[in-house]
């Protein structure tokens, strides 16, 4: 009985504070993460490091039951801009091998504020006004998908 309780307690701690199971709902990270895919959000990733460009992260809203899955494209102080679908960081085109779908976005330059990162989904085939992206506080980043 004690062994069962210990396993249950360990499982609770692991799935609550270390790796949160989640299911991808939506298409904003396609083709990297498909709608319906199952994954784990590793919460300890940034315990001793800071989020960097290229990382795919989970962004908290009111809680951790529903989060946004996005990719960091710029960090504080950097300038983000889109010209004819090409992403420019500090005026230089960023190499993005993970982008497989066509993109025609245009966005005037904007600077990432202190303690914030700029996140975008990998699926930029939808019109820019229908894609949820932008800068967010580092505090909202809860972890990274495990695979």
């Amino acid at each position, binding site marked *: 009985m004690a062994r069962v309780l210990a396993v249950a307690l360990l499982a609770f701690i692991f799935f609550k504070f270390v790796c949160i199971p989640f299911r991808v709902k939506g298409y904003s990270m396609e083709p990297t993460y498909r709608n319906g895919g199952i994954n784990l959000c590793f919460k300890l990733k940034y315990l001793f490091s800071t989020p960097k460009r290229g990382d795919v992260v989970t962004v908290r809203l009111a809680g951790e*039951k*529903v989060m946004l899955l996005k990719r960091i494209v710029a960090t504080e102080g950097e300038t983000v801009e889109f010209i004819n679908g090409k992403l420019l960081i500090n005026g230089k085109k960023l190499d993005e091998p993970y982008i497989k779908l066509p993109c025609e976005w245009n966005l005037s330059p904007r600077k990432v504020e202190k303690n914030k990162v700029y*996140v975008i989904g990998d699926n930029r085939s939808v019109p820019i006004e229908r894609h949820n992206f932008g800068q*967010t506080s580092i505090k909202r980043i809860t972890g990274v998908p495990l695979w």
Partner: protein
Amino acid sequence: MVENKNIIIAVIVLAAVAILYFLLHKSEEDKVKLQLELLGKHVSMETGEKPVTAVTKAKNTRDLFAEISRLEIPAYSLDGSFTHGDISSLLISSRSYFSRFTLEFKDINVEITEEDKAEAEVTVRLSGKLTSGERTDETHELECKFKKIEGEWLFSGITAVAVLQK
């Protein structure tokens, strides 16, 4: 022996009463959560919804709001004070864009700020299909304000939180 038996029965009865109390008792926070669940239920729309159902749902939704409520949701170009009539019209007209949609509230954090006022931070998920055939799947963080009027928690304001700023 008889005394022991009576004590055991008394403990069982007390435990049953305590369990029933925890199961049936609704705290003020629970009542606020219920209003959010009702809003999701009334606003959601199934495929082939009949006009009479839409009108009933619009009325039920309207009744969850105070006489005048403040709505600030830039994604839907909402910014201002809305009366019961405005909310009903808004709900009826917005249904024409969808063939079906579901509104769900998750991660509900309620705080009773005063005896007759409450605030809730929530994540709202709107998923469905537009009449044009396109899928829609949106997630927003909202701050909801409530006023207790005649014993009922009514929405007095809903503000969208800018989690991502373009």
